[in-house]
Structures are given as structure tokens and as C-alpha cells.
């Protein structure tokens, strides 16, 4: 291997930031809010109500920073960097519909190999579990977490 190709191999492409959530489920929409903030700053983003969007990105070999609401992970508004491997036993990111994050990652591991999932990083924002009624908008504590979560996601997504 030449020195040049060695340098290339150490460079990582910029990641896609994927916001997961439901706007009509109150604080569950925080992942989408973070994605919208970053899209306005020119970051490549996707928004989805469920995690199926991950599969096509990981099949294409993309690096992904996932932003999702997390229930039972501390005070609402806490911003966490979660380990992919800890998903099954740790706090469960919420998905009110469709395929969940843990399921999508397990499916990607099966279909596209462990290396595909190694390219995923997760930013969680702690929320209280949404109630049954629909509601739009974030609570003040979770709204205050959008900017720090966006900053963390942007730093993880940066080309390096």
C-alpha cells in the first residue's frame, strides 16, 4: 500500500444525519427537529418516522449519525451519545410505527455485515414517554436540547 492510499483510507466521508420521530407525538419529534436545524446549515440529512431509511443508507456504505428520542434515559432534555451495541439492553429509542432502530440495525448486520453497523453513531435525546393523545411541538426542556444535540450530531458527522 502506498502512503497516498494510506492517507485516503484514514479519511472518513461526512455522515448523513438521520432524524427519527413523529411530529404529532410531542417530544418524539425531537429527532426531526435536530435534522431540520442541521439541514438549514447545509448538513446532509434524512427524516423518517421509522428506522427503515437506515437500511438503504447502510447498503450504500454510508456513514450515519442517527438522532432519536430516548425514553427512560434520565432527565428530559439530556443529550446522550449511545453505543450501537448497547441498544438492545439499554434505553430503547421510541418508534411509534414501523421498524425500530434496534431492529433496523440487526437487519442491517444480517444483510450487509457487521461493518455496515460499525458506521452508525447514535445521538439520543431523553424524553418522557409520550402519552396517548397527539400533540405537536416540543416541551421546553426537550426544545432546549435541540441545539446541543445538533452540535453533537454535526461534530460526529464531520468529515475526518
Amino acid at each position, binding site marked *: 500500500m502506498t502512503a497516498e492510499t494510506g492517507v485516503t483510507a484514514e479519511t472518513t466521508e461526512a455522515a448523513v444525519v438521520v432524524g427519527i420521530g413523529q411530529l404529532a407525538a410531542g417530544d418524539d419529534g425531537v429527532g426531526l427537529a435536530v435534522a431540520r436545524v442541521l439541514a438549514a446549515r447545509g448538513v446532509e440529512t434524512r427524516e*423518517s*418516522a421509522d428506522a427503515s431509511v437506515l437500511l438503504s443508507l447502510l*447498503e450504500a456504505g454510508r456513514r450515519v449519525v442517527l438522532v432519536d428520542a430516548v425514553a427512560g434515559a434520565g432527565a428530559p432534555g439530556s443529550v446522550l451519545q449511545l453505543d450501537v451495541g448497547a441498544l438492545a439492553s439499554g434505553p430503547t429509542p421510541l418508534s411509534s*410505527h*414501523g421498524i425500530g432502530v434496534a431492529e433496523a440495525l*440487526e*437487519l442491517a448486520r*444480517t*444483510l450487509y455485515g457487521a461493518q455496515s453497523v460499525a458506521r452508525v453513531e447514535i445521538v439520543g435525546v431523553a424524553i418522557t414517554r409520550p402519552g396517548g393523545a397527539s400533540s405537536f411541538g416540543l416541551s421546553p426542556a426537550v426544545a432546549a436540547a435541540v441545539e446541543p444535540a445538533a452540535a453533537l450530531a454535526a461534530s460526529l458527522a464531520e468529515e475526518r
Partner: protein
Amino acid sequence: MTTRTIEVAVLARVEGEGALTLVLDGATVVDAKLKLFEPPRLFEALMRGRACTEAPDITARICGICPVAYEMSSCHAVEDALGVSVGGALRELRRLLYCGEWIESHVLHMVMLHAPDFLGFPDAMTLAKHHPERVRGSLRIKKAGNAIVATLGGREIHPVNVKVGGFYRAPRRAELAALLPDLRAARAEAEETLAWLATFEFPTFERDYELVSLRHPTEYPMNEGRLVSTKGLDIDVHDFGAHIHEHQVAHSTALQAQIVGRGSYQSGPLARFVQNADRLSPGAAAAAARVGLDPSCRNPFRMLLVRGVETIYALDEAIRIIEAYAPPAESCVPLVMRAGTGHAVTEAPRGILYHRYVLDEAGIVQDAQIAPPTSQNQRGIEEDLLAMGPMLASLSLEAATRRAEHAIRNYDPCISCSTHFLTLRFEQLGTP
């Protein structure tokens, strides 16, 4: 003979929330209740007082799997009330959008939701471990369908580019042409998928169904046609209400439907295929023949294969429309509000979707009726289960439960779509 009860508290691998209770007395099913307990959605009441031009955007929210169907039925019904006709390239674009939805909905159901039943796997995750190439292929087919909806509809879920009279913006030719390589690759994958599905073992079961679908003079039906059945129904969609009645049952938040004077009926892929096999593309017709499907089929388990054939058809049709596409001069036809009643039936992936709107002179909706395919199919699904007694009697309780769930999933039920209705009854305390 002993009595056995099959209880499935929450049905898996269906869209929405439902349950099943089946009581078997020996080889006879004495009671079958498909309980759709998802809370009512009340969309018909929500439409009252809204502008008719809002109908596609509001009713699309009924379903994240088949929003295009709601957009198409609502547009056609409102246009019918306003005396507007959409033709030429705009009509072709609507058909292309529907192809996208059929592709993504059918392939999701066939491979991720229904195939595990045939192979004895508990879920799609286990299926993926045993057949990763098939699951990878199905995801690529689905992606090609999603790309049509995203390009033409503005986004993959709940597309925003559809409006009464046409579209907000018609795509450029190059935008659609960019979809062709993935669609052609998906076409080849769909053939392989169907060949794989055809290797499954299909339970022996038939019923003397009344199969109901649209029938168009020249096309495999999507947006237009007369409503016809295998037992002689042949009506204009304006007469839907005179021939098909909906009624409430105690165990479901979805209405059930029946043909007046006859009873239950089934709509969906099998009904479409049986009555329109002569309208398939040559490639889809050849695919049907290769897997042994012909219009005499009355086995609902083989609807899996019909979905495979319809996926191939939708890919053929999408490629044909894109190759011939010339952008329209205007992205929509002009609308003039007037009072009237409009009706439409279109073919959602799961079956016929009927919309009726009554408008006042300003185009405000005074009354709305929406009859989704799953509520229309619901009674027939229960009748399938009632007729499955001999098959279920020979199985263990666990295997019989799996087979009953399998039979429900033949119809790819979309429970969230179906549960839109609720009659509230107020009783005055102290009144005798």
C-alpha cells in the same frame, strides 16, 4: 369432540392493531371474530366543513403504507363532483404514482410480512438470516418503488405534490428518466422473487368467493373502471352505495361491508387478477403462467403469487410510462367550485377504496364516506376462518393459531385504514 379456542391478543405483521378469537368444536369453527380494536380515526367527520381541495392531503394521513390510494380516490371523487376530467400526461403520472405504491406495498408484504408464514419463521429477522439475498433483493425493489413516490410525490411517505386536478408540479423528463436503471434492475429482481415465492408450499383451500374489482376497457385497473364481480355485479362506481352497504359489528371499530342481497365479498390482488388477467403486460402475464396462476384461482393463500405478478406488472407499467413521458403544458387542470356529489373507486394495493363527497356551491365538504379495502374484506376474512375448520382441526393449537394468522395475512390487512367510523349512542339516565 373437544372445543378449542384460538386467541391471538395482538396480531403481528399487519398494519395496525387487531386481535382474533376463533372457537373450534371438533372440525367446525363455530365462531370467528377478527377484532379490529384500533381506536376509530373519524376522518369522515374530520372532512366535513373542509374545502374539497384539502381532501387528498387530509385523507392521505389515514395510511402511511397506502397514502397514494387515498390521494387518488379523493381526487377522483372531488373531480367527479366538480365535473372535471384529468387526462393525457397528468393521468399517466397518476398511474405512475400508483405503480410506485403498489411496488413498495406489495414487496414489503410478500417478503417481510407474509413469507415468514410460509417458511415457518417467526419474523422477518429470522427470514433474513436464512435468505439474506432475497431480503436484500426485496429491499432494492421497494427502494425503486419508494423512489417513484418520492420523485413524483415530493417525499416517500404522505406525498405532498398531489392536488385535485393534477399535481403542484409536473416532473421534468430527466427526473423520471433517472429512475429507469433502478426500475429495470428491480424488474429482474421481481422475477427472481416471484420464482422463489413459487417454491413455497401453499395450503389447499378454496372458497366460492364473490371477487370484486375495477375493470377498465384497456388497462389493468388502478384509477378508473366499472365495478365488476365474479358473480355478475357490473356497476358504475356512482352506484356503489346502492349495491354495497356498510354496517357496524360489536367486535370491531371498522365497519363491515356486504353486497346487498348476497353477502360478503373480497377485493384485492386476487379479485383484480381473476377479472383482469387479460389486461396484464405480456411480461407479467408470462410470469403468472410460469407460476401456475390463472383466473380460475380461488385459493387466497396464492394471493402471495398474485402480488408478485402485480409487482412485475407495476414495474413494467412504470417503465412504459416513463419511457413515453412528455411533460404536460400545465401541471393541473383548472377547477371551478360547484355543488354536487362525487364518487370514485380506485385500486389500493389491498383492494378497492371508495370515496364519496357531497359539496356545497363553494366546494365545502358537507358529507364524506370512505370505504377502505380492509373493512370491505373483513367479513370475508372471518368467513375464510369459519371455512378452515377441517384444516385447523388436524393441527396442534399452536400450529392452528399460526395457520389462522397466516390466513388473515393473505389479505395484507391495513387496520389503521379501516377503523374510521364510530356511532356514538347517548342514553338518557332515568329514561325507561
